[in-house]
C-alpha cells in the first residue's frame, strides 16, 4: 500500500507537476506554447534546471543526500502551491483538464500501456550504463559523489585519476537527481531506475516528438502520427551500429546522455525555432520568456550531460547568428524595429 502511495506521489512529481510548472510561463504576456503538452515539456525543463542550480550549491557545500532531498522537497512543494495558485487565479482550470478529442485520449492510453510494457518487460542491463550503481552508492552512503560507484572506494582511498573521473560525473549530476527521488521514496534504486523512470521519461520523449510533429504538420493528424511512428521505428531499428549510447532509447532512456541528445536537444531546437514555421526575428531573442527558455534549457542540459550547456548554447548562438544574418540580408538595420 505504501509503495503504491509512493509511486502515486512520484507520478505526480514527474508527470503532473511539470504541467503545473509550465503553466507559470503563462504569466508572460506574449509567450508561446500554450498547450498542455508544451506546458509539460517546458515545466520538465524548468524543474531539471532548478535542480541543477540546487545541486551546484549542494555539491559546493558538501551537503548530504538527505539534506539535498529535504531542500528539493520544499522547492517542489513551493512550486506546486505557486503554480496551482497561478492556475486558479489566471487560468481557466477546466481548459487545462478538458479532453478535446476522445480519439486522442484513446491513442494516448494505448501509448501509455505500450510504455509500461516496454518499461516492465525489457531487460536493460548494459555493462556500460552505471546509473543504478551511482544512485545506489549515493543512497547507501548518504553522500553526493564521494564514493566511486563501481568500486565502492571512498575519495580518500582513490587514486588521482579516479578522483578526476568522480569530479567529471559531478559536472552533470543527473544521478544525484535520481538519487533524490530514491531517498524521497526509499524504493530500491534498481527498481526506481529500471521500472519507474522509463514510465516517467518515455512520455517526455513522446511529447517531444509529438511537438515536432505538430510543428512540421500543423493540422494534418495522419501525417503527424505517421511522422511519430517512423521516428520511433528509426530509433528501434537503429541507423547506427551497436556502439551508440544515444540510440539506446529503448534500453536506457534514463541515461543522461540519451535523455539529452534524444529528448532535450530536439526540444531546445523547437524552443529556438518558436511556434512559427520560420526563424525567430532578432527582436524575439530579447523577450523575457525567450531568455528564460534559454536559461532553463541550458541548465537542464548541463544537468543531463557534461557538455550539455555547450551544445544548448551553440544551438541558441547559431539561431541568433542566423537571425542577424537574415536581418542583414533583408537590408534592415539591427536597431530598427519592424512595423
Amino acid at each position, binding site marked *: 500500500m505504501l509503495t503504491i502511495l509512493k509511486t502515486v506521489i512520484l507520478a505526480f512529481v514527474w508527470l503532473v507537476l511539470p504541467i503545473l510548472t509550465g503553466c507559470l510561463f503563462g504569466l508572460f504576456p506574449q509567450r508561446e506554447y500554450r498547450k498542455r503538452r508544451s506546458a509539460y515539456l517546458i515545466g520538465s525543463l524548468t524543474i531539471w534546471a532548478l535542480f541543477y542550480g540546487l545541486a551546484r550549491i549542494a555539491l559546493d557545500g558538501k551537503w548530504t543526500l538527505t539534506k539535498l532531498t529535504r531542500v528539493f522537497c520544499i522547492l517542489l512543494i513551493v512550486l506546486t502551491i505557486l503554480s496551482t495558485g497561478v492556475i486558479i487565479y489566471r487560468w481557466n482550470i477546466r481548459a487545462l483538464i478538458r479532453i478535446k478529442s476522445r480519439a486522442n485520449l484513446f491513442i494516448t492510453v494505448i501509448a501509455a500501456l505500450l510504455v509500461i510494457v516496454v518499461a516492465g518487460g525489457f531487460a536493460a542491463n548494459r555493462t556500460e550504463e552505471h546509473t543504478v550503481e551511482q544512485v*545506489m552508492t549515493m543512497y547507501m552512503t548518504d553522500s553526493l559523489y564521494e564514493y566511486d560507484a563501481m568500486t565502492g572506494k571512498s575519495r580518500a582511498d582513490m587514486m588521482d585519476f579516479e578522483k578526476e573521473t568522480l569530479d567529471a560525473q559531478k559536472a552533470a549530476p543527473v544521478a544525484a537527481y535520481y538519487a533524490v527521488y530514491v531517498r524521497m521514496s526509499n524504493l530500491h*534504486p534498481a527498481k526506481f531506475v529500471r521500472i519507474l523512470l522509463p514510465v516517467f521519461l518515455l512520455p517526455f520523449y513522446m511529447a517531444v516528438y509529438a511537438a515536432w510533429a505538430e510543428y512540421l504538420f500543423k493540422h494534418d493528424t495522419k501525417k503527424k502520427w*505517421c511522422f511519430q511512428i517512423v521516428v520511433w521505428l*528509426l530509433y528501434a531499428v537503429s541507423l547506427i551500429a551497436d556502439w551508440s549510447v544515444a540510440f539506446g532509447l529503448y534500453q536506457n532512456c534514463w541515461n543522461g546522455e540519451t535523455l539529452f541528445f534524444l529528448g532535450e536537444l530536439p526540444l531546445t531546437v523547437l524552443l529556438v525555432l518558436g511556434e512559427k514555421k520560420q526563424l525567430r526575428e532578432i527582436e524575439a531573442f530579447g523577450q523575457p520568456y525567450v531568455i528564460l527558455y534559454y536559461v532553463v534549457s541550458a541548465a537542464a542540459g548541463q544537468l543531463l550531460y557534461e557538455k550539455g550547456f555547450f551544445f544548448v548554447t551553440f544551438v541558441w548562438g547559431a539561431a541568433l547568428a*542566423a537571425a542577424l544574418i537574415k536581418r542583414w540580408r533583408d537590408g534592415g538595420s539591427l536597431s530598427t524595429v519592424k512595423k
Partner: protein
Amino acid sequence: MAEIDFFYQNFWKYWNGALYLVPYLGCLVYLVYKKDKKLMELFVWPFLILLATVYNPFLMRPIIEKMGWEDRYMRFYWLLPAEFLCAYLLARLVNRKAKREVQFAVGVVVLGIVFLCGSSLVKYIPDDNVYKIDSWVLETSELIAEASKKENPVILVDQEMYSSIRQYDPTVIEAVNNTEMARYMFTDTEELPVDGQYDDHSTAVSLFVKGVEVDASIMNEIFAERQVDFFVRNTRYYSAEYLQQLDLTYVGAVEGYEVYRCAKE
C-alpha cells in the same frame, strides 16, 4: 594529414552504417530541388552551418585540443537531424495524394527499407526479477552478505560480475579499480601477456580477472595486501588444482559462479 585522419575516423565511427547517410543527404538535395524556403531554413541551412563550424577540421582541431574533447567529438554528429528529416519526408511520401493501395505499398516499402538497413539494437530478453539484474548476481550478493562478518566486505570478481554486482548490494568494495579491470578487456585470452604477472601486482590482478592462472604465491600476496574477504570465481576459469594452491575456503555456489572466503581453514 593526421588531423584529417582524426576527423575521418570519427566520421566512420558514427556513420559506420553509412547506408543511412544516403537517404539523409538525398532528403537534403530533394529540399534544395523543391526550393521550399521554410524547410531549407529548418534542415538545409543548419546542415551547412554545421559543415562550416563543428564539422570543419581546420576550425575544430585547435578547439578540440584546447578543450580536450577528443573522445567526445563523435557526439557532434548527433546534431544531424537525420531521423527527423527522413521521418518527415517518409511521412509525406506515405500520405501523399494517391490511391490507398499505392499508399499501402509505399508504407510496406518504407518499413522494409527501415528494417533491412538498420541494425537492431533492441533484443527482447525476459527479465529475471523486478530489479532487472541477472539472478546469479543477486544470489552471489546474498551469499556474500550471509557469509560476511564485515559491514563492507572487499571482493574480487571477474569482468562480468564487476559491472553489475554493486547494482544490488553497494556495501561490497571491489579489490580492483576500473583501470585494472579494463586493462585487458578487449584482449583475446591467447594474446594476453602472461609474463606481465611478474612485473607488478596491478598487472597480475588484471590478468587474473581475465582467467589467467597467475602464480599462486603472487595471488596470495595480493589477497593479503588488498585485504580481500571474498573471491568470486567464474566457473569457466581456473582449475581445481590451481584453486587448491590459493588461500581460499569454499562458501557456496550459484549458477556459473563459486564464492570463496579468502582464508584457509
